[in-house]
């Protein structure tokens, strides 16, 4: 045929390639078409078998979420809604429970019917399917446990139904059921349109709306006592929704248990209040141990019924752990007190020496822009011998809709009568249009003068005028106090 060898090679090879491409391309199109027309209306087998014949619809926009339950990492990989007559009557979950370097437990679980968070321990799954059963050879025990939970003869509320033989995997499994149950209770009541978000420890203490920043300059504090060795690893500045600022600490304490093993507990604890009356607002355990009676001790401390100083209160039944926790909390509290700054201390900075509340009759006033009140006045001793004054004040004015807006703040002043200076301010009640903040900052830094009426036009002229009048009133009072 064709004589030239190179040509022949190229021709043959390209023919084969073309033939191959045609065959595969054609087949690919055909299989795609087949897949489209034969899309199964059934959910994957492991979900469908939870309730054969029922309709399961995969929840869209669900991306796998992990949470830590009693130190097992539980990942909900898929959620399907059980639909009956168009209504969602339950949810099925596919879960994976594991710790690194241990065999996983994978299962699907179906919850049906109404459920309430308050009653979460009574929520029972209607069916469970174990796909991967954990420690090989012991998967029988997980299956028995699952059957028991569905029947009602075993409980998923704690580890009491765990039998020996693969206990770790059984515990993982129970953690998984609890995680699914939590999500179900939220989801069936319409509370989660999307995936459940795991709350951080500080969120668990204070609730949803807040802000917390870890303090980078904090260096870990270690301590050793007769009961334990502890380490305070992080300090956080927590700002609550009402603008109060508190501190939270993350710490670890380790101690020897009666068997000689080292137990480790990690907690996050939040403190508030001034130096004389520090309050434990709450705590969140990030790494727990099985004997956790120390929790009732901490509950008492945060409620105020138990005092940290009382050594007898420690005898809760797990004295070792409670003592270890107590030492850690006392260490945290000591740091809190050492670093505690009052609001005024923060404002005046290093020149702050001390403060006291003045005998002061509230000063009220009305201007064309607002009504204000100087509610409280503090005298602040400064390091250069002078005395500054700080005011708690309120100003209220009508917004364009006719509603009354109120702004509350604390403002600090220093300097003599001729050079009264606004040192700083802190808002305790804010409004949404807060361009006036830029105005106050400029006044404090000196770039804007209170005298200058045109500087008021920040974009929220109403509020800025109200603030200006307030500041003018404060300044008048301050100068008067200096001259008195």
């Amino acid at each position, binding site marked *: 045929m064709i004589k030239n060898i190179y040509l022949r090679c190229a021709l043959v090879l390209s023919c084969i390639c073309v033939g*191959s491409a045609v065959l*595969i391309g054609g087949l*690919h199109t055909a299989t795609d078409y087949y897949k489209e027309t034969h899309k199964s209306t059934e959910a994957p087998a492991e979900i469908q078998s939870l309730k054969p014949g029922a309709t399961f619809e995969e929840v869209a926009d669900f991306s796998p979420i992990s949470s830590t339950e009693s130190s097992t990492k539980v990942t909900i990989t898929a959620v399907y809604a059980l639909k009956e007559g168009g209504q969602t009557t339950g949810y099925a979950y596919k879960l994976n429970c594991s710790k*690194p*370097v241990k065999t996983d437990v994978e299962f699907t679980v179906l919850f049906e019917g109404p459920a309430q968070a308050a009653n979460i321990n009574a929520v029972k799954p209607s069916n469970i399917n174990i796909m991967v059963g954990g420690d090989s050879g012991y998967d029988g025990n997980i299956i028995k446990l699952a059957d028991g939970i569905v029947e009602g003869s075993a409980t998923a509320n704690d580890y009491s139904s765990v039998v020996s033989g693969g206990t770790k995997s059984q515990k993982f499994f129970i953690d998984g059921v609890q995680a699914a149950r939590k999500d179900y209770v939220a989801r069936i009541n319409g509370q989660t349109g999307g995936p459940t978000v795991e709350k951080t420890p500080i969120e668990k203490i204070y609730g949803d709306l807040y802000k917390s920043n870890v303090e980078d300059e904090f260096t870990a504090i270690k301590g050793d006592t007769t009961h334990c060795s502890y380490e305070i690893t992080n300090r956080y500045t927590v700002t609550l929704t009402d603008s109060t600022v508190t501190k939270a600490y993350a710490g670890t304490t380790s101690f020897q248990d009666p068997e000689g093993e080292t137990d480790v507990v990690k907690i996050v604890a939040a403190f508030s209040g001034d130096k004389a009356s520090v309050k434990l607002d709450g705590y969140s355990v990030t790494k727990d141990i099985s004997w956790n009676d120390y929790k009732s001790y901490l509950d008492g401390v945060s409620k105020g019924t138990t005092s940290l100083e009382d050594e007898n209160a420690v005898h809760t039944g797990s004295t070792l752990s409670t003592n270890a926790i107590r030492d850690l909390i006392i260490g945290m509290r000591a740091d809190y007190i050492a670093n505690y700054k009052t609001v005024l201390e923060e404002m005046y900075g290093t020149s702050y020496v001390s403060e006291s509340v003045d005998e002061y009759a509230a000063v009220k006033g009305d201007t064309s822009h607002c009504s204000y009140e100087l509610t409280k006045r503090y005298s602040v001793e400064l390091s250069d011998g002078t005395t500054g004054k700080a005011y708690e004040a309120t100003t209220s004015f009508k917004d364009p809709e006719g509603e009354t807006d109120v702004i509350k703040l604390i403002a600090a002043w220093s300097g003599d009568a001729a050079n009264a200076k606004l040192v700083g301010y802190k808002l305790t009640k804010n409004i949404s249009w807060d361009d006036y903040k830029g105005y106050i900052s400029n006044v404090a830094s000196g770039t804007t003068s209170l005298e200058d009426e045109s500087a008021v036009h920040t974009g929220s002229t109403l509020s800025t005028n109200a603030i200006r009048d307030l500041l003018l009133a404060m300044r008048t009072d301050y100068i008067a106090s200096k001259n008195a």
Partner: protein
Amino acid sequence: MQYIVSFILAIVSYMVIDNVILSRYFGICSFIGVGNKIKSALGMGLAVTAVTLIAALVCWPLYNFILVPANMEYMETIVFILVIASLVQMVGFFIKKKSISLYKTLGIYLPLITTNCAVLGVVENNMAYDFGRSMANALGTSLGFILVIFLFACIRIRLEGSNLPKAFKGVPIALIVAGLMAIVFMGLGGIVDLGSWGLI
């Protein structure tokens, strides 16, 4: 820093813990056939390493930047194997030029690298990974391959002189030795948990 450490850990993991021959079952034909000559074993290991690394380097972008955007993922098998086959030819030319003796020692094994499951297996696995991890996979796999081939050649030298039942001589005892090596390597499982480094 974290990235470098996790890269090194990934290499170690793919090299030793999830060893290409003893744990992932790739490259067994070449492994059994390598015999007891250490020099040829090492030479083969190096050739496989070269091919694996270059193949991984070339195929990953090929897959992710050409096949995927064109929705032609199903062509991956053909594309990869052609790349590997041509790479083997090129490596063969290179070795022939540089060292005729090595070329002769490798003999039939050189073209057999094309059919070495390890190379194609690594390239196929890499489709699911990001670039860093795929290179760690390629490096770890090659190093693991060399390690096991070398150990195996050393063991086989000892096997030569031993008194085996006739039925076991040759391939059967080689496989049983491989099984014992696999048990040893199993013990290393769990040393590095890629999951806790966020690599999984």
